[in-house]
C-alpha cells in the first residue's frame, strides 16, 4: 500500500521518543510474540549468505583438489574394496584398490569446472547475442532470435550427445557438445532484460545527455543485466553438472582411467549389492553438487533482490 510506504519516510530515524518525551523503550515491545515467518527474516539473510559461501567453498575445494587428495587417484594404493572410514582411506577404496576420496575430489573438480565452463561459454555467447539483439532491435533482433529459436527447438541432450559422438570421446568434446545446446537460454533471458532496461527513463535521459550507443549499452544497460545473468547462471550450474554426469555415465566424456563421477558410477554399478559405496559415493557427490548450485543460486537471488 502506497500510503504506508509513504509514511515510513520518517522511519529512517532511530532513537525513538514517544509523545510524552519518554524514550520509546518504555513502551512494552512484542519481542517474543512474533510470527515465525517474520522472526526468520533477518536470519534468512544469514542462511542465504552461508549458502552463497558454500558455492564459493565448493569452487575452492575443486581448485585445491590435487592438494587435498591424499593419494594418486589413478594408481592402486591400498587393499581392494575397503569400506568407508577405513584407516588411511576415509571413503574406502574401489575394486582396483584406488583411494575413493582422491577419486571423488578429482572427479568433483572435473565436474564442477566443466559445468562452470559450459555456463561461462553459454553466458558469453548467449549474452553477447542477447545484448546485440535487445539493444539493436528491429531486423537484427528478429534474425538473431529466430536463430536462437531454431536451437531451442532441438532436443538439447540428444544434440549434445550427437555432437559429442561426432567429435569422439573426450572431456573437451563433451563440453563443446553441451555448450552448443546451452547458450540459447541465456540469449533469450538477457535479450528480454536488455529490452526492458532500454526503454527505461534513465536510458532515455542518458541518450539525451549525449551518450553514444556503445556507452548506453555498456554503462546504462549492462550493469542492470548482471544480477539476473549471475543468478540464472548459478542456478544453471546444477543442471549442467547433472547433464555432464549423465553423458559420462553413457560413456561420453573423459576416457577410462581418469576419475569422473558419472563414469565411475557406470563402471561400478554392478557392485551396488556388494560394495555399495563404490557407485554410491560418486552418485551422491553429483547430487550434492547440484544441490549446492541450486540452493546457492536461490540464495544469491534473495540477496541481490534484497539489495534493490
Amino acid at each position: 500500500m502506497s500510503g504506508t510506504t509513504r509514511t515510513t519516510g520518517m522511519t529512517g530515524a532511530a532513537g525513538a521518543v514517544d509523545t510524552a518525551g519518554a524514550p520509546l523503550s518504555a513502551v512494552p515491545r512484542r519481542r517474543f510474540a512474533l510470527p515465525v515467518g517474520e522472526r526468520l527474516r533477518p536470519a534468512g539473510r544469514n542462511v542465504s549468505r552461508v549458502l552463497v559461501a558454500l558455492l564459493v567453498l565448493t569452487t575452492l575445494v575443486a581448485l585445491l583438489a590435487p592438494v587435498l587428495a591424499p593419494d594418486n587417484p589413478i594408481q592402486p594404493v591400498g587393499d581392494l574394496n575397503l569400506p568407508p572410514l577405513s584407516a588411511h582411506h576415509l571413503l574406502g577404496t574401489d575394486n582396483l584398490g584406488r583411494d575413493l576420496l582422491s577419486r571423488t575430489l578429482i572427479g568433483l573438480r572435473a565436474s564442477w569446472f566443466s559445468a562452470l565452463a559450459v555456463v561461462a561459454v553459454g553466458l558469453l555467447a548467449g549474452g553477447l547475442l542477447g545484448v546485440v539483439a535487445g539493444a539493436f532491435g528491429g531486423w537484427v533482433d528478429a534474425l538473431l532470435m529466430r536463430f536462437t529459436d531454431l536451437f531451442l527447438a532441438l532436443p538439447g541432450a540428444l544434440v549434445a550427445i550427437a555432437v559429442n559422438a561426432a567429435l569422439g570421446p573426450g572431456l573437451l568434446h563433451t563440453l563443446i557438445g553441451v555448450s552448443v545446446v546451452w547458450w540459447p537460454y541465456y540469449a533469450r533471458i538477457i535479450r528480454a532484460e536488455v529490452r526492458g532496461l532500454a526503454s527505461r527513463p534513465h536510458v532515455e535521459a542518458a541518450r539525451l545527455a549525449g551518450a553514444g550507443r556503445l556507452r548506453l549499452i555498456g554503462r546504462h544497460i549492462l550493469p542492470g543485466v548482471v544480477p539476473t545473468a549471475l543468478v540464472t547462471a548459478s542456478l544453471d550450474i546444477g543442471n549442467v553438472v547433472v547433464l555432464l554426469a549423465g553423458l559420462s555415465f553413457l560413456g561420453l566424456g573423459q576416457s577410462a582411467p581418469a576419475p569422473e563421477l558419472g563414469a565411475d558410477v557406470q563402471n561400478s554399478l554392478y557392485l551396488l549389492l556388494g560394495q555399495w559405496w563404490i557407485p554410491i559415493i560418486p552418485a551422491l557427490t553429483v547430487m550434492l553438487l547440484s544441490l549446492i548450485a541450486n540452493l546457492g543460486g536461490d540464495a544469491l537471488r534473495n540477496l541481490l533482490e534484497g539489495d534493490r
Partner: protein
Amino acid sequence: MSAHDLPTPGTARAPGPEPGAASRSGSATAPAAGTAGPVASVRGLSVSLQRQGVRSPVLRGVDLDIAPGEIVGLVGESGSGKSVLAMTMLGLLPRSARPVITGSVHAAGTDMLHGTPAQLRAVRRSRLGVIFQDPMTSLNPTMRIGRQITEVTGDSGEAVTLLGAVRVPEPARRMRAFPHELSGGLRQRVMAAIALTGRPRLIVADEPTTALDVTVQAQLLALLADLRREFGCSVLFITHDLAVAAQITDRIAVLYQGRVAEIGPSAQLLHHPTHPYTAGLLGSRLSLSTPRTGALPTLPADGVPVAERLRGCAYHTRCPLVLDRCASQQPPATPVEGTGVLRACWRDSTAVRDIHRAVVPAEGLAAHAGPLGAVHPSPGGSGKPAADLAVEVRALGCRFHSRSGFEPRHTVDALQGVDLDVRAGEALSIVGESGSGKSTLLRVIAGLTRPTAGTVVLRGTAQMVFQDAGSSLTPWLTVGALLRERLRAAKVPPAEAARRTEEVLAAMGLPASVLKVRPGELSGGQRQRVALARAVVVPPTVLLCDEPTSALDASLAASVLNLIREMRRELAMTVVFVTHDLAVARLMGDRIAVMAQGRLVEQGDAHDIVTAPADPRTRALLDAVPRIDVPAARPATGPADRPEAAR
C-alpha cells in the same frame, strides 16, 4: 466477503494487529453504538512501526473525533503519518511492520485495537468503507466489476443501484466491464460503490483523487459530498493538498510528524491558521493568485534528522516563530477561544496570524499580468522572422499502434496536426489532462519519440527533465559519473568541467559530497535537483520539463520550480514546461498552450489564458483547479450546499 477483503496488494489484506499487540494503556471507553456520539473516536493514539530493523514513531499522541455525517480532512506532507492513522482506524496495519500501539481507537462503536479479528472483519464489512489512492491495484483485474460488487452486496440488483448512486453512466452495461476497460475516474467510482455497500457509517478515503486529472478530481469530490448527503455517512478524507480538502471538508486536521498541529472548522483553519505549519503550507501553495514575478514562496527544507526534533515541537527546525522552549517541550493541544480550533503551539495565535498575512499573496490576478521578468529578446509579434524561433512544430502527428493480447489492434492518435512555435528565450507552458498528448509532444521535440507526420525544427540543443527523477537517473552510477558523462559528451575540457560541476552544484544547493553518491541514497527533492543539474551543466538552448514536480511535496515542488526559473534567467534558456496544473503553468510560462485529445486547442499569453480562457476545455481545466478561497468563489459544479461544521 467485505469490500476490504478484496485482493488489495499490501495492507488491505494484511491482518489487523493482534489484540495483544497494543499495550492497554488507553483508558477511554467505547461510546455505545447507536447514541449520538462520534462515529469514530481516536484518543491518545501512538503508533510506532518497524522498517528494515529500525523502529520509529509514526503517530505520537493523536486525538480525533468524527461526528455522524461529518467530512473530516486529514492533511499533511508525505511522512506525516496520515495513512497510518487511517489504517489503524480500519484495523488494517500490516503485521509485518510490527506495530506497537498505545491509546484507543473506536470506529462505529467497535474497539479497533482490541477487537477480535472476526469483530473487526464484521465492522469493516458492514459499517466502514474505504477508497484507496489507486483503484487499479484495489480492484481485481481478472474479475468483471459487476461480480466484484455483487460479491460484497450479494445481490446484482443492488450492485446496479449502487453503481447508479455513484453516478456511473449506464450502470447495467458497466457491470460487465473489466477494471482496465474503465477510466481512472470510473474505477474510483466503482471503489466508492463497493465502499457504500451496507450503508457504512464511515468512509475512509486515502488520497482518492491524487491519481486523477483535475477535472475528474472535481467530479469525485462532488460525488463524495453528495454521498454524504444521501447516505448520511461520515468521511475521513486524506490528502496532501489543503485546497482539495477545502473543497468538501467540514473540519480539517493538519498532521505534522505524527502529531495534530492544528484541527478546526475548515473555513476557520484555512483563512485564519493558528499554527505556523498551517500558515506555511498555505503560504507555499501555488495558486492562480501566486505572484508571477519574484521567487515562489517555499517552506524551509529540513536538514535536521527526525529523531533530534521529536523531543519538542517537531516543527521547530522549520518554524519562523521558534522559541527556546519549542526545541525541548512538546506543546499541548489548546483550544482557541470561540473558533472551535485546537492548536499545539507555544506561540500566541496572533503571531501566527501576522506571518500568515505576510506570506499569503494578495487576492486577484490583475496585479500580476505581464511576462515573468526573464530574458526576452523582443516582445511577441506575428510578423517575426523564423530565425527567432527555438522550436518550430508543423502539422505534427503521432500515431501509436497497440496490439495487446487477443484484442484487435487499434490506433491511438497521440498528436494530430499540432502547430506550435516557441520563440528563443521564451518560457512556454503546455497544459492538458493525462492523455492529451502533452508529454508526447515534448518527447517528439526532444527526439525520443519519432513523429508519424509533420516536422519539428529544433534550433540548438535540447535537454529534458523527467517527471520521475528517481527513474531518470541510472541507479548504479554516481551523481559525479552522470555529470561527467554529460560534460564529456559536450567535449568540455577537464579543468572547465570541474569548474562547471562546482558551479552547478552550488546553484542547485547541493553539497559537493553528492558527487560520490548514487541516486538511490538521495531524497526525492535532491534527485530532481541532480536531474536538473545534469540538464543544465552544459546549458542547452531549450530546456524541456515533463511535470518535474508532480511527484514532490508542495514545499519541495516550489523550490524546484524556483531553480528552473533561476536557471532560465541565468543561462538565457528557452523553457518548455509540461504540466497538468494551470496554476503551475501560469507561474512557469510567459505563454500557455492548452492541449486536449492530441490537439492544440488554445494558446496565448499566460495571463490572458488564465483570466479570459476562450476554449471551453481551458475553462474546464481552470474551473477544476482547487481553490482555497471557498465557499464564495466555488464553481457551480462543486458541492454547493455544505452544511455547517458539526461543532
